[in-house]
């Protein structure tokens, strides 16, 4: 009777370990490979209304911006920032990557999605301001060892502008945390 209980306990623990390992592998894979989920609400934007095509391209480009930023910070590659960042934001992130290289650090983001709200669209269509409620898991690694791991519910304010064939991020500023 006692042996059977022990056997079932071990089986249960083994099963739990297996599930955790599978979840960890899945999360790691999606951190680098998948495009983050971005939902955009443009109901209250002004003074200019968002055109249909713009309403589709912004969530796509913003998601790609987050994906490339996560890749840049995980792999310490400044070249990943060339596609979707410009101006001060690109300078800031480049500085961050360079200082990570100098300190031997890496930052890994697991992106759980963004709720984007367009809050200002310039009359000439040359800039848009967004509010992003982002859900992320962040790990800071020193020499491959995780030294900090935390789930984040952070609110960002961003400014994006149209480039030649995409929207690029000019400013992305975390302004506070929020309840999940």
């Amino acid at each position, binding site marked *: 009777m006692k042996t059977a209980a022990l056997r079932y306990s071990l089986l249960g623990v083994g099963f739990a370990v297996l599930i955790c390992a599978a979840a960890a592998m899945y999360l790691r894979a999606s951190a680098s490979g998948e495009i983050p989920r971005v939902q955009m609400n443009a109901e209250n934007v002004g003074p200019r209304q968002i055109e249909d095509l713009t309403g589709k391209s912004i969530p796509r480009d913003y998601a790609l911006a987050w994906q490339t930023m996560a890749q840049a910070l995980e792999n310490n590659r400044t070249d990943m920032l060339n596609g979707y960042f410009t101006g001060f934001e690109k300078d800031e992130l480049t500085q*961050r990557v360079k200082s990570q290289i100098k*300190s031997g650090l890496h930052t890994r983001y697991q992106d759980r999605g963004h709720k984007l709200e367009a809050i200002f669209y310039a009359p000439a269509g040359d800039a848009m301001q967004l509010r992003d409620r982002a859900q992320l898991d962040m790990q800071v690694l020193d020499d491959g060892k995780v030294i900090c791991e*935390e789930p984040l519910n952070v609110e960002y304010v961003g400014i994006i502008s149209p480039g030649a064939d995409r929207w690029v991020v000019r400013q992305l500023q975390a302004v506070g945390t929020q309840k999940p």
Partner: protein
Amino acid sequence: MKTLSSFAILLFAVLAAQGAEIHPPAQVTAGTAITIPTSGSGDADLYLVGPASASKRKVQAGSDISVESDQLEHAGRYVAILCASDGCASSSFFVNPAAANRLSLLVHPSRVPVGSGNGISTVAFVFDNFHNLVLKPEPVKFSVLPKGGSEVSADREAKDGVAWVRLTSAKKEGPTKLGAAIGHANEVRVVQQVAADACNLRIKASRVKNNYLIETDPVRDCSGNSVPDGTVVSFTMTDAEGKTTVDVPIKRGVAKIEMPIKGRARVTVASGVVTGNELEVGG
């Protein structure tokens, strides 16, 4: 006595097992130095990860650790991590923008026809000295200074770091300065106001040898501004042989063309969407 000593040992063990802790202030103003109190003891590593930096340095756990102002210039979320022999502890805090003192001004378009209702859009993004977007409401002073005219200004409150106005261009052509000011920042852009479409386009005809010289009066817009040289005027002649259209750019304020006309012909003129008078010549 045995119970008491066991309790003392347990208490000591619990205290000894307590890891290093770190307690940064929850909110910091950009460009301000801070001190981060820590607990624990022994050698430790302090990591500070922010929007534009990630640093690592050796510290003594249990002491107050100072962070220089230049490490906290970028607004956003920072994580302070203290790793001692017994593990790592972390705490996050936010750096908020400092006082508004910079502007990024977008003015569109750079050339605008006179009298265009809400034809000029001016958007100002409000920043602090470290290029952080200042989100709290701040008054931005917009001003318009036409060439040879007096300045007109209006205040708009920035919302979430953005203030904007739409302006109607003046009736008179020429450059006009558009400015926005906040704190010590005063950004100015120049918009060239150009004549609008031609107005009251009129032509006249005169005989030159065997041809007719068809010539416009000086081409002006409805406010009396000269339509710029190079603007195309189209002359269309309809006679017994059919219809002929010739495009001519304005030179020195007028557009003219010599046309060989046999018999009676009707000549019309247009510039863009504006049509002028009609002439009957020949016969």
